[in-house]
Structures are given as C-alpha cells and as structure tokens.
C-alpha cells in the first residue's frame, strides 16, 4: 500500500472528479459533479440527507462506477474498479454505515484483507495500533468482539482502520455522528495533524459548526448537484459566522431557474377562527435510536398550512408519530377541534379526523404485496361496507377503488396490481386517497415529495394545497426548505427535538428559517 509519497506535492490534486454523474432508478444521485481533492486540505462535503454525498464516496471507494464523467488520480484518468483498487490507490474510507464484522474481534477486523494464506499478523498490528492510538488519545480494546462495543467505539475502530492502512486520502462519511463532543474535537485536531503531514481528507458532516471549524475547503451538494464551493483562500479570509452564513446561503438559498418554484397563492386564513389542532408542551422520551421531543407547542387553524423545517433527524418523525398516536408521549396535550385526544389510540384519532401520511410509504404506509384496491382500505379492514361479518365485499371494494383511482389519478395497470410495483409517486397517491377520504380534519404530511420526480412532486403539492383550501388544517413536515416556502402560511423550525421558533412566511422567512435551522436566533 502506498504511503504519503512524494508524488503528491502540495497543490496538485490527488484525486479529481470531472463531470461525474450517477443515476439510480428514478433518481439522479450525482449530476455532473466536479471536485478537486488536494493533499494538505480537509475538504468538507456538505449537503442534506439524499444530497448524494455517500454516492460520491461510493465511486471514490470502488463500490460503484460513474455513469458519466471520469475520476482522475494523480493526473491520470483512472476508473476505480473495486474496493481493493481504491485501497491500492491509497484511498481509505470510513463509510457512513458500519463496516465491521460484528462476530469478529477488533483485531480481526483490522486484519481483514491480508493475504489469505497467511496467519493474521496480530503482534505487528498491536504495535501499529499502539502507535496510532497514543497520538489519537483513544484506547481501543483490540480483543473485544465488535458486537460488544458501543456505536461510538465502533466508529473509532473504523477511523483507526483507515489510518492503519496508511491511506493518503482519508474519507470520513458522517463519522462524527456517534462521537462525543470531546471525541469530535479530538478528531478535528487529528485531521489537522494529518493534513499537515500531507494527507488529503474528505470530511462529510451535517453540522455546519464542524465544517467551519475543521475545513479548509467546502463543497455543498444539493439534490445531486454541486451548488457551490468555498475555496481555502476565501475560507481563511472569513470568520466562522461568515462562513456559516455563506453555507446557509448555498444550502438553502434560492436556485436560479428552479422548475419547482411556484408563486404562493395568497390564502385567507381566518385568524380569529378556533384552531383545529392545538398542541401544548408535548414531550417524548428519547430512545436508543431516536431523539426525544420537548416543549412542542403550536396551533393550526382551519385552512392553514404549518410547515416544520429542520435538518433531517431532528425529531420530525417522532413528532408526526406522537401526534398520530404511534409513539408514547410523556407529557403535553393535543386537542383536535377542541377535544383532547392525547390518550386515544391510533384508530380512534383517525376516526376523529386526524390523518397521517408517513414518509415510509412502502414500509409503514402500504402492504407492498397487497393489491392497490385493498391498500385503499387497509385502515378499515373488517368495517362495513367493505367487509361484512368478516367477509371481504369484493364488489364494494372494487367499485370504490376504481373511483379513487380516477379521482386521484393513480397510474396502475389494474386494481389487482401489488402496490409495491407502482412508482413512488403513485404509491403516494394511494396513500393520499386513503388518508384524505371521508372525515379528515387535520392532516400530517411527513416528507410528502421525498424521492418523487418533478411531475409527481408538483401534483402532490397541489393536492396538499387543495386539502388546506377545503378548510382542513395541514401540518407539513419537510426537509426541503423551498417546498415549505412555496406552500406554508407559517414555518416552525425543529432542532434537537424542540421547536426553536415559528416564522410567518413573509419575504424574510428564508433567512430567518435558515438561521434557526443551524442554531442561530432568527
């Protein structure tokens, strides 16, 4: 394996991406991206979930091949054909998802990849690890089984592994997510030392503070496109706050010629009308894999759309589930049309008119192998008129399904088609048809356009506007700020499970919301 060789003289790219495009069925994960990775630099890659960061890393690590464009290594166009090839080129990656074998020990995991006929060289490894951990200031239990380690410890092992391999390009894909604040600072200091030795580092994070504190150069991805870069000269000239506001501008700023941009129609919300949904001091206890919620309070009046903005994973899903009754709350009240519903079951809340469109359309929202028709009535299974005495009323179901398919423009080969075979947009229409049916009063949409193509995105948004226009109260949870700005009357911002502010959707809403999202006062 190569060490930091002399060929990587400072200033020249170790690796460069030129017009790299990667498509997955129905989505352009990377859209002609140019990226220069230089020795002596921490190159921060920023972007929301789904922006295409991990896809980019997959191509640099040999897991995936670009559909268009090329990768240039040390000045030569070099297709990276396999992970082994990437390692041989000196590219070491800490992947976003754990890449350790849980049933092997830490030492065995670090040794994985050696020539198969050899005995694992445990002593050599122990010496090398001791050397690195002492500079890193961490302790690693070499003989513990990986499954016995905490997630943070596992992440440390993965970072260590990339270093044991003497990579000259180190890629860290969201490697700070499980570290303590102290661990993160240490990692930052370590990255600084490494780049001073001549390494190149690509550092992916969600947290703007880390980006500003540890980076030399920042590239911002948005929906697969690179929307901006802050080069080192500029980086050094700016203070931390200025860098952060520049990033916010790049991440959330209005794009030119955006096809999704729609003038928001002025709606008249009767300010004096009694709220349809009133939430006060709602709290949810945190679990192992989800943040908790605290002091959530808001009202939604009839005909109003309230947006929930925030970086993904800040409690959006928990909020939606707590309101729908799928997640236990520890305190607070939820009133629907004046009546307290916080103690009611999921079914009873639905009965009263509270509807929830999950973002997990196939997992939680529908039963993929069931036909479209049954999926329309999943939440009424057993109830008349579609079921009588426990017997499915085929004719009744088909008649109503056909009606819904027409009304909601679901493109399906037939009513009997398993719903999983439909495209994302049409699955969403099935959900919409089901949840907006008779008796809806308050509708919670969780990322309603996530992963949909443009036509379906626009159609879904129109459907949501129509819902509000009918006098229903709408809670729209989205990580797409443009979407919220184009639809909502007011926008609340969620961060770390708490509502940090509610902003009227006026001209200055964009900057106010952006600042709230990254933890600055509006």
């Amino acid at each position, binding site marked *: 394996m190569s060490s930091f060789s002399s060929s990587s003289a400072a200033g020249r790219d170790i690796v460069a991406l030129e017009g790299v495009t990667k498509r997955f069925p129905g989505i352009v994960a990377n859209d002609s991206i140019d990226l220069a990775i230089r020795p002596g630099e921490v190159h921060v890659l920023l972007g929301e979930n789904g922006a295409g960061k991990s896809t980019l890393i997959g191509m640099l690590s040999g897991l*995936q091949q670009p559909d268009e464009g090329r990768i240039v290594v040390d000045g030569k166009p070099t297709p990276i054909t396999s992970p082994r090839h990437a390692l041989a080129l000196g590219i070491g990656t800490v992947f976003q998802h754990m890449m350790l074998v849980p049933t092997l020990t830490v030492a065995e995991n670090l040794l*994985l*990849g050696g020539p198969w006929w050899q005995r694992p060289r445990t002593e050599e490894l122990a010496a090398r690890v001791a050397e690195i951990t002492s500079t890193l200031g961490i302790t690693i239990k070499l003989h513990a089984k990986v499954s016995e380690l905490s997630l943070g410890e596992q992440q440390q092992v993965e970072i260590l592994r990339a270093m044991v391999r003497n990579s000259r390009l180190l890629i860290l894909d969201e490697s700070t997510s499980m570290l303590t604040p102290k661990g993160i600072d240490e990692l930052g200091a370590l990255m600084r030392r490494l780049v001073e030795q001549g390494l190149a580092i690509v550092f992916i994070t969600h947290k703007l503070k880390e980006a500003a504190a540890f980076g030399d150069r920042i590239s911002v991805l948005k929906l697969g496109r690179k929307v901006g870069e802050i080069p080192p000269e500029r980086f050094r000239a700016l203070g931390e706050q200025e860098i952060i506001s520049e990033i916010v501008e790049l991440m959330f700023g209005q794009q030119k010629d955006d096809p999704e941009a729609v003038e928001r129609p002025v709606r008249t919300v009767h300010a004096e009308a009694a709220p349809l949904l009133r939430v006060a001091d709602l709290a949810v206890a945190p679990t192992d894999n989800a943040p908790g919620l605290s002091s959530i309070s808001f009202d939604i009046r009839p005909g109003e759309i309230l947006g929930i903005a925030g970086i993904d994973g800040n409690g959006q899903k928990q909020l939606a589930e707590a309101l729908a009754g799928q997640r236990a709350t520890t305190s607070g009240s939820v009133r629907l049309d004046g009546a307290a519903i916080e103690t009611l079951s999921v079914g009873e809340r639905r009965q009263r008119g509270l509807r929830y469109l999950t973002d997990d359309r196939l997992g939680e929202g529908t039963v993929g192998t069931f036909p479209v028709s049954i999926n329309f009535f999943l939440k009424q299974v057993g109830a008349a008129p579609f079921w009588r005495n426990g017997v499915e009323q085929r004719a009744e179901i088909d008649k109503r399904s056909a009606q819904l398919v027409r009304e909601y423009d679901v493109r399906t080969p037939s009513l009997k088609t398993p719903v999983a075979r439909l495209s994302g947009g049409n699955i969403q229409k099935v959900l919409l048809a089901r949840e907006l049916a008779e008796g809806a009063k308050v509708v919670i949409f969780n990322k309603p356009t996530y992963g949909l193509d443009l036509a379906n995105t626009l159609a879904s948004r129109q459907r949501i506007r129509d819902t509000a226009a009918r006098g229903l109260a709408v809670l729209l949870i989205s990580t797409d700020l443009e979407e919220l700005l184009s639809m909502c009357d007011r926008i609340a911002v969620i961060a770390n499970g708490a509502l940090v502010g509610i902003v009227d959707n006026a001209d200055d809403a964009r900057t106010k919301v952006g600042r709230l999202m990254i933890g600055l006062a509006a």
Partner: protein
Amino acid sequence: MTGLFSEVFLSALLFGAVTAAIPLLLAGLGEQMSEKAGVLNIGIEGMMLAGAYLGFVGAFYSGSLWLGFLTGAAGGVAVALVMALLCVRIGLNQIVIGIALTLGLEGLTALLHHFQFSRSYPRLPAAEVTVIPLLSDIPVIGPALFKQHLIVYLAVALVFGMGYVYRRTQLGLNLQAAGDKPAALDVAGIDVVRTRTVAVLTTGALAGLGGAYLANVGAGLFIPFITNGAGFLGIVLAMLARGRPIWVLFGALLFGVCLSLTTAMQVAGINIPTDIIQMLPFLAVMIMLVLFGRRASLPAALGIPYERGAR
C-alpha cells in the same frame, strides 16, 4: 439378551457407527464451510450423489479406491460449480437452486447407472483397512476404531485442520466475514464472490468424497438414491455445530451410532421389527433438533446473495 452386550455386538455396532458417520462428517464439514461463508447449500445431497456415482464408476473401472475418491470429489466439485455460478455469481435463490440440483442429480445418476449396468449391481472388493498398531488391540474399541480405511483417519484429521483454518488463519477470517457481513469484507479489499465460490467448491469436494466413501467403502456398490438423505443430515449437523468442526464430528458419530444400530441388532439376532429400528436415525434428528435447535446460530447474511453497492 447376553447378545446385546457381547464384545462382537458392541464392536460391530461401533465399527458400523464410524462407517456410517464418515459420509455425514464430510457432508457436515462441507456444509459448514458454505454456511460460514453465507451460502446455504441445499444442493449438497446432489453433490454427494454425484460423488457416490462417479466415485463408484472411477473405482470400478480403475480398480483403485483412491482414484475413486478422486473422481468422486471431482463429481461433487462439478455440481458445486453450477451452484456457485447460479447462486454466488448470478445471485439466484439458493434454496430453489439447491433443491433443483438435488432432484436433478437423483434422476441423472439413477439414469446413468441404469444405462451402464442395467439392473445389475456389481460390487467392489472389500476396502483395505489400515491397522493402527497397539491401539487396535484394545478390546471392543480397538477393532472398531483403529482398523478402518485410511480415509477415515484423514477425515478425522480434517476436523482439526478445519478448526485451525477457521480460528487461526486469514482465510478463516475471510470466510466468516463473507457470511456475517459481506460488505465489510468487500471494502477490506477481498472479493466476496470469489471467497464464497471457494467455499462452495470446497463443499462440493468434501460432499463428493463423502458420497464416494458411502458407495465404495460403506456399501461397496452404487444403487440409485444411495445417499438417502445423508446430505440433509449434513445440513442439520452444520446448523447445530455453531461453526465448530468438532461438533460436527460429535453429531456425525451420534447419528452414526443410530444408523448402525439397525445392522448391529441384526448381527446380534435381536427380534425387533426392522421398521422400528430404521426409524431410529430420524428420531435422533428430531430429538437433537428439539434439544439443541435453539443453539443453532447462523451467519447474518446466510442465504443472501451479495451484490456490491446494492442496498
């Protein structure tokens, strides 16, 4: 009832147990290797049949038992090659292909045997045994355990050899990673498909050898469907052995005892309906599954084809 405890009876029982255990042992060790690497090898019964048939043909025409073992192992590898191609490389369903291979080879070997030998079942000369001095003089155990064909000792040695490979070599790490977290192996620079292919081919060689032993040493002849579920018993053994070859050995011996009770009781002249005695091995399987089924711990990625970059 003195017959039951006579030296002759016990010795015959043990000898038969070992003879019956060896094919199960080889099949179990083979299956264990595939499963460790994440491939559920249901086709192992077919591999054993191919080994039994080709092993018999090889030995029959060459007159050499060792050449027969070689052709038997080659037969198993040939079937394993198909399995590796379809299930590891192309990623088809391992259970479906495994069953298809087993059924296919049952038919194919029966057909070939019929063409070649019509309805006659020629026998091979009795296999030569290697007598281990001193040890073979121990009463009861001696003649049963230490007057066996050389391949029996080799098979037992293989148990320890494989234990060493699994616990002490880089290859062992690779195999385990391929079964528990193939993506981790891949990003460590080791080709998962290649690792699994090696495992499946090894399984084929061991299963083929087991089949050849069954025909050439155990029975001395080939009859259609001769394996009679030995491969499936191998799968049970591998699943209960928690990745440890030594447990496969113990399990194989236990089943071997049950299988040989049938013959041994006849030798001793005991009057129990054979139907009942012949149920013993299957009863043993069920008892073992009830007792130990819970301790089966299977690799996380068992049965799941690996595709790089998929999710």
